[in-house]
Structures are given as structure tokens and as C-alpha cells.
């Protein structure tokens, strides 16, 4: 059956990213040598990206349940109940490697992929976010990557018609050879109309929908699971080109045929394309699938079965159509100008059979393709703990205002307006809080309910202490959602790490996952979806461990959300949570003193919860006028952000006696928020006292500058100018 196909040699097996023992496993499983097409299918199913062979064991420890979770990990996206019969459907996914090779198309198809994951489940995407990490701004490739990735994300999302409402952007030399592009999408569906991949019913048509299949991205999933070497350039021909227009049509057509009751099961074709989607539909439903590749809509002539099975052409879907509904489904697809073809059927054989030109190209046990994928308990070592940094031991020449100005003008803190102005963040007319705040708020239909979304992680913390760093990432997202008044409901994660075959890297993954799990549990913030991206390293140098967390929460009335801008002169500024002046792994240490060391701030999850719940209640009751969480950069950066957003300055208190001023202003103690109060000041203080919550007065709003006792005044407008300047100037120098 393999007359025209290459012979299976150890080299060919290795080229497919399969280790000798993995190949042995294949031989045992099927009792014979696989055909070339079958080898391709195994390589797609068993690579890191699809099988999670290095991470699966550790992912099992994550809390995934809550009364409001409708669907946890295991489907295209997670689903949560947001009340009133509605559900939010969301997930985050990486497109790191393709974006490094071709930033515009790589990032664009990343957005396309995650949007598809969401509407595959029957949800209309209502918001998108993205978490981006680039190398040192001085690295010759960085500017090109920033320009391309941002244009690619905008190019896809804007055309598709989803508002891109939030995200994060960071720079660090450890991403020089591997940028990170993590895209998140959030959709809205009726809670009782969610669609799944699980096929049911024997003899039903398997239908192919969307764009035609070309030779794009063959081996893309394998690429995502391999470390970059000097030869990265050679992997170029696999680049996929996104077609947001086709995706928009696919969205409308899919939602229309779902509404018409035509769909039994649906699965998008993402990584590893037709192979992964067909196998998943069958395996989940305990059914076999038989495909006839002669029917497959192809863009190019002479494509082989191997190529068709592994193509990663974008904007495609696979569905099992309800009996007797083919004609209706086809009419809807034709109306939208999309391809529609019956390419196979479900069977009761539990075999995955692929036919092409009268030959059987593959005949494999369908369940085992997924279930029997290798599972590794890779050796790992714990990251050694570091001592905290004693502020008194530091030699600091920068003044407090000088350090603030430098921080706010540095790549990580500088305004990202240049980026989010390239994203349509207003379309659909529901964006209540635009980019630039703690979390995005998007009204649900005509309101008053809204969804609150944020994503975050502090890789420096994760590198120094994976467990605390993992906790902190979850806590910070939870805090961001809380700071606008949202009730955090569930999270999605995107675990970006280096080569898991190295025990130190595996130790980072294990540590971060434990931290994420502990925080998710303590904060009632379960994990409902996610994605793992490993082998992010070049020539043996790994990225910083970067477990990006994306969170979704709900707010009952979008009119009652809080924003971070100061509202008026003469209001009291309070800080909730204790300040010890923790400088280990702080932005201050890294940016001003050029050292990245020490232990990161520990996260007290009980305190996080207590403080967050307190702040949320204050917002709900309208007792606070502005709210901002305190994260990297510490108190003074947070206050400055509140001032810059409003143009209103403040007169601040002196640091407590005995504390190094820089540690007070720039320390990164967790579980803190800054709030302003007007008439309700006494009541808020009383409430805090009753609840046993540490609150300190930080100052009073007013004037056009920030006044700190004993320091020169900082003009808010000048600070804002500096804050806004870095990115446009940096990008302006290039194309």
C-alpha cells in the first residue's frame, strides 16, 4: 500500500521527531512497519504540541472544577457559566516559533487559531488579548519582530472583527532568539448550546468546511516542538498565510449551521490539521473514522496523502453532520462562498482509515493514537532558592524621582499605546474599559453584565522561584480583575518554557505548575483551558520561564466598574496591604541597579483573597473613586500611573522611619491595592479595621505634580510624555 512512498529508515523516523523508543512503541502498537503516511500521522499525534508528553503528568495536578465550570480542559476551549443562561468560552494559545520566523503571518495565524478554537464551540468571539515577549530592544531582530507581530495581530483581529482589548508586552534578552506570542480569545454562547468535538452515531458524514488544503505548514506542529538551532531559516517554507476574511466567513457560516441544528460534532483543524481533528472526533466518541482523500478540496495539484494529512492550512473545520442535514448545511456554506465536501464517515470499527486514489494509506487504531501517546515523567531538579535582597546593603545613586522617571520610560513600563492603537479595540460597541487599565471590561450584549479580562506573568519571579512565580502570576491576574470590580471566575494558561529534556527546565515547569495550582485552588479560580509551548530555546539558551495566565471574571453592572485614574483633587489615597519594601527580583533592582537577583516576593494567598474581596466590595458599594493594583514597580509606579491617567497629581507621605525610601516606593510586596476615597474615607477605614486589613494613608490627590517630602517634585505631564515616548521613538527608527 505504500508503493510510491519513501522507505522507512531510522533517519526518516528521526526526521519526524520520533525517538527510537517511540518508534518501537509504534511497531508494537500496530504489529508491523508503518507506511509513510502513517509515520506522518504518528509524528503529528505524538509530538509535544499535540500529546503533551512532557507536561501531561504535571497538568493533572491543576484544579479544574467549580460549580460554574461547564467545560474544563480537554476541549477546544474552556466554558464557564456567567449567569442568565450565558457562557463565556475562552482559551489562550501560543504561536511562538512561527512568529519568530515570519512575524506578521505567524502572529496573525496565531490569532486565527485561537478565534477558531472559540467559535468551534459555538461561541461568537467578543474579545481578544495577547501576551507578547520580545528580546532586548538592542537586539537587531527585535524591532522587526515587534513591528511584524503587532501588525499581524491587528491585521487578523481587525479584519475578523473582534476587539483586541488587552494584553501585555515585555522585553528581555532571554527572548532574543525566541519571542513569545500568546493569543487569547473570549467568546459568548448560550450555556445550553455548546458544541463539542465528540462524534456520535455510526455512518454519519464527516464534512470538510472552509478554505482549501495546500502545502502550508507541513511539519509546523513538529517545528513547534523542536528547539531552534542555526538552521531555523531552513524551516521557512512551512510558513502559513492567514486569511482573516475566510475566517470571518467561516465564523458566520459555522454559527449559522449550528443554529440550524445541523452539527453533531465539530473540530477545527489547527496544529497537525486533518489528522488531529479527525482522530480527536473519533476517539472522543468511541468511533472509527474513514476518510476519502480524493474528496478533499485541495489548492494545489498532486498533493499526496501524507501532505493532505499533515497540512496546516488555516481556516478549515471538520464536522459530523446530523442525518439528513447535509443539503441544508451545504447551502449555508455555499452562501458564504466556502468549500464544503463530504470527505468521510464515522464507523464502528475504532480504526482510523485513510484512503487515497484507491489505496489504503493508513489504517490505525484510533484510540491508541491519542491514548497510547508517550507520557514522560522527565527528570527534574528544583530551582535553588535565593536569599532576599537587603535594601540597606544596596548602593543607590538614583533619587526617588529619578528612578521613577527611568522606570516609566523603560521598555517594560513605557506606554504600549503605539501597539494597542493598531488594534481595533472598540468594534462591537461593548468595550467599557479600553486598553491601558488593570483589566479590560467588555459589556455582554446590551448589559448591564460585563466580562472582565486580563493576562499576566512576571517571568523574573518564575525564574528565581518557580513555585512563588507561578502563584504570583495567578494572583496578579486575579488582582487585576478584582481591581476593576470583577469577580474572577476561571483562568487559561499558556506555559512557555525551554527544553524539558533538561532537568532544570523541567524543574521550572513543575514548580510553576504547582504554584499555579496552589493559587488557582486558594482563589477559587480554576483552570479551564490552556496550552503548552516547550523547546523555546536557541543554542542551549532558554527563555525565562513564562507561564502566561489569562483570566476571565464577571461584573454584574458595567456602570459600576472602577478605573485607575484619579478622579478629583483633595481625595485621600490609601494603600491596602502591608509594605515591607521587598526588593528581591524587583523592577527597580533590574532596571535601576542592573541586577536580577534575590528571592521574589512571596505570595500569601489567604491575604490575596481577603484584600481582593474587600476591595471588590468597596467598588460594588461605590465607596472608592479610583482603584489600581500594585504590581511590579511598586507603590510609586502605581501612583504615577493613576496620576498620568488623569493629569491630577498628589502630595505623598514620607516613607516610614527606618525603611530605605527606594524600598518603600519601589518594593514589590504582593496583595496590595491603591484606592482613593472621597466622602467615604472614615467608613472605609472603619471597615478595614473591623476586617483586620492593613491600610495606610499614602497621600492626597491634587495639583499637577507628585510631591514627595524631601524630593524634587515630579511634573505629571512631563512624566507622561516620557512614558509615552519610548515605544514610538524606538519603533520610529525602523520601518
Amino acid at each position, binding site marked *: 500500500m505504500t508503493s510510491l512512498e519513501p522507505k522507512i529508515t531510522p533517519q526518516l523516523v528521526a526526521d519526524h521527531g520520533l525517538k527510537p523508543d517511540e518508534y518501537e512503541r509504534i511497531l508494537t502498537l500496530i504489529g508491523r512497519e508503518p507506511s509513510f503516511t502513517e509515520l506522518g500521522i504518528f509524528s503529528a499525534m505524538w509530538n509535544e504540541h499535540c500529546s503533551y508528553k512532557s507536561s501531561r503528568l504535571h497538568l493533572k495536578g491543576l484544579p479544574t472544577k467549580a460549580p460554574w465550570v461547564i467545560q474544563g480542559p480537554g476541549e477546544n476551549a474552556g466554558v464557564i457559566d456567567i449567569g442568565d443562561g450565558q457562557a463565556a468560552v475562552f482559551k489562550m494559545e501560543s504561536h511562538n516559533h512561527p512568529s519568530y520566523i515570519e512575524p506578521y503571518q505567524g502572529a496573525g495565524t496565531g490569532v486565527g487559531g485561537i478565534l477558531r478554537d472559540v467559535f468551534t464551540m459555538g461561541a461568537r468571539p467578543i474579545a481578544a488579548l495577547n501576551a507578547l515577549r520580545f528580546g532586548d530592544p538592542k537586539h537587531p531582530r527585535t524591532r522587526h519582530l515587534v513591528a511584524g507581530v503587532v501588525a499581524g495581530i491587528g491585521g487578523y483581529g481587525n479584519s475578523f472583527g473582534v476587539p483586541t482589548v488587552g494584553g501585555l508586552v515585555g522585553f528581555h534578552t532571554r527572548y532574543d532568539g525566541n519571542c513569545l506570542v500568546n493569543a487569547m480569545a473570549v467568546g459568548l454562547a448560550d450555556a445550553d448550546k455548546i458544541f463539542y468535538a465528540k462524534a456520535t452515531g455510526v455512518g454519519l458524514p464527516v464534512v470538510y468546511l472552509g478554505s482549501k488544503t495546500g502545502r502550508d505548514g507541513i511539519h509546523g506542529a513538529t517545528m513547534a516542538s523542536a528547539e531552534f538551532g542555526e538552521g531555523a531559516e531552513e524551516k*521557512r517554507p512551512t510558513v502559513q498565510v492567514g486569511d482573516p476574511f475566510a475566517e470571518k466567513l467561516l465564523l458566520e457560516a459555522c454559527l449559522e449551521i449550528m443554529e440550524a441544528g445541523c452539527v453533531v460534532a465539530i473540530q477545527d483543524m489547527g496544529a497537525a490539521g486533518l489528522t488531529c481533528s479527525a482522530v480527536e472526533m473519533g476517539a472522543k466518541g468511541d468511533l472509527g473514522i474513514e476518510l476519502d482523500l480524493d474528496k478533499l478540496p485541495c489548492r494545489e495539484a498532486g498533493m499526496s496523502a501524507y501532505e493532505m494529512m499533515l497540512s496546516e492550512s488555516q481556516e478549515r473545520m471538520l464536522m459530523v453532520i446530523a442525518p439528513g442535514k447535509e443539503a441544508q448545511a451545504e447551502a449555508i456554506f455555499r452562501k458564504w462562498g466556502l468549500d464544503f465536501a463530504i470527505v468521510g464517515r464515522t464507523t464502528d470499527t475504532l480504526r482510523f482509515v485513510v484512503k487515497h486514489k484507491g489505496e489504503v494509506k493508513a489504517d490505525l487504531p484510533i484510540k491508541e493514537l491519542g491514548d497510547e501517546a508517550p507520557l514522560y515523567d522527565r527528570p527534574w531538579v528544583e530551582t535553588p532558592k535565593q536569599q532576599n535582597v537587603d535594601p540597606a546593603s544596596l548602593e543607590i545613586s538614583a533619587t526617588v524621582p529619578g528612578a521613577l522617571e527611568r522606570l516609566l520610560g523603560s521598555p517594560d513600563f513605557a506606554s504600549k499605546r503605539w501597539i494597542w492603537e493598531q488594534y481595533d479595540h472598540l468594534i462591537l460597541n461593548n468595550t467599557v474599559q479600553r486598553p491601558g487599565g488593570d483589566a479590560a471590561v467588555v459589556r455582554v450584549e446590551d448589559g448591564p453584565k460585563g466580562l472582565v479580562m486580563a493576562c499576566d506573568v512576571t517571568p523574573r519571579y518564575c525564574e528565581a522561584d518557580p513555585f512563588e512565580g507561578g502563584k504570583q502570576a495567578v494572583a496578579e491576574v486575579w488582582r487585576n480583575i478584582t481591581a476593576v470590580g470583577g469577580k474572577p471566575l476561571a483562568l487559561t494558561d499558556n506555559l512557555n518554557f525551554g527544553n524539558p529534556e533538561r532537568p532544570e527546565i523541567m524543574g521550572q515547569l513543575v514548580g510553576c505548575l504547582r504554584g499555579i495550582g496552589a493559587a488557582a485552588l486558594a482563589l477559587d479560580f480554576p483552570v479551564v483551558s490552556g496550552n503548552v509551548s516547550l523547546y523555546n530555546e536557541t543554542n542551549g539558551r532558554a527563555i525565562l520561564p513564562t507561564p502566561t495566565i489569562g483570566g476571565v471574571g464577571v461584573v454584574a453592572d458595567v456602570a459600576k466598574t472602577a478605573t485607575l485614574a484619579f478622579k478629583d483633587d483633595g481625595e485621600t489615597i490609601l494603600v491596602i496591604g502591608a509594605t515591607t519594601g521587598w526588593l528581591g527580583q524587583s523592577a527597580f533592582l533590574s532596571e535601576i541597579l542592573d541586577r536580577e537577583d534575590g528571592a521574589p516576593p512571596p505570595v500569601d494567598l489567604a491575604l490575596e483573597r481577603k484584600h481582593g474581596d474587600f476591595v471588590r466590595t468597596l467598588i460594588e458599594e461605590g465607596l472608592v473613586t479610583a482603584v489600581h493594583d500594585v504590581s511590579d514597580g511598586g507603590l510609586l509606579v502605581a501612583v504615577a500611573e493613576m496620576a498620568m491617567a488623569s493629569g491630577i497629581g498628589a502630595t505623598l507621605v514620607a516613607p516610614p522611619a527606618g525603611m530605605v525610601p527606594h524600598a518603600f516606593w519601589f518594593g514589590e510586596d504582593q496583595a496590595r491595592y491603591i484606592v482613593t476615597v472621597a466622602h467615604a474615607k472614615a467608613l472605609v477605614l472603619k471597615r478595614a479595621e473591623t476586617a483586620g486589613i492593613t491600610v495606610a494613608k499614602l497621600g492626597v490627590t491634587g495639583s499637577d505634580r507628585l510631591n514627595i517630602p524631601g524630593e524634587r517634585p515630579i511634573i505629571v505631564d512631563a512624566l507622561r510624555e516620557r512614558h509615552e515616548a519610548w515605544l514610538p521613538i524606538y519603533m520610529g527608527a525602523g520601518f
Partner: protein
Amino acid sequence: MKARVLVTLKSAVLDPQGKAIEGALRSLGVPGVASVRQGKVFDVELDGDDKVRAEATLKDACEKLLANTVIESYRIEFVG
């Protein structure tokens, strides 16, 4: 000196624009068009008239900016 640079998508790369144009021509009743692929053309005016140098300059321009060599190929032509 005048030159023309043609930048076209490599043959296996999807061309969404070409595809949309094919569809539009069909629905406008223009018959007999089997396929369309869209590319870019740059009409470049160069200083001097040293063709060898001009060619080198344009090659440099293509590699650095005009073409995305990951998915596109380019051709340099001299006009007149």
C-alpha cells in the same frame, strides 16, 4: 536609471487576495479566468547609470525590505 522590481508569492504559499479576486471576477461575469495570483511591483528610480551597482542596490533593497523572502520571491528588471 529606471528599474522594476516584481515581488510575488512563492508558489505553494496561499494568496488570499488572488482567491478573492478570482471569485469576484467570476461573479462579475468575466469568463475564462482559471486563477489569479497577486504580487507587488515597485518602479524604482535610481541615481547614476551603473547597471551593476544598481542591481546590487536593488538586491539589497529586496532582501532588506521590499520582499518578505520567507514567503515571497523577487525579480529585478531594467526598463528601457
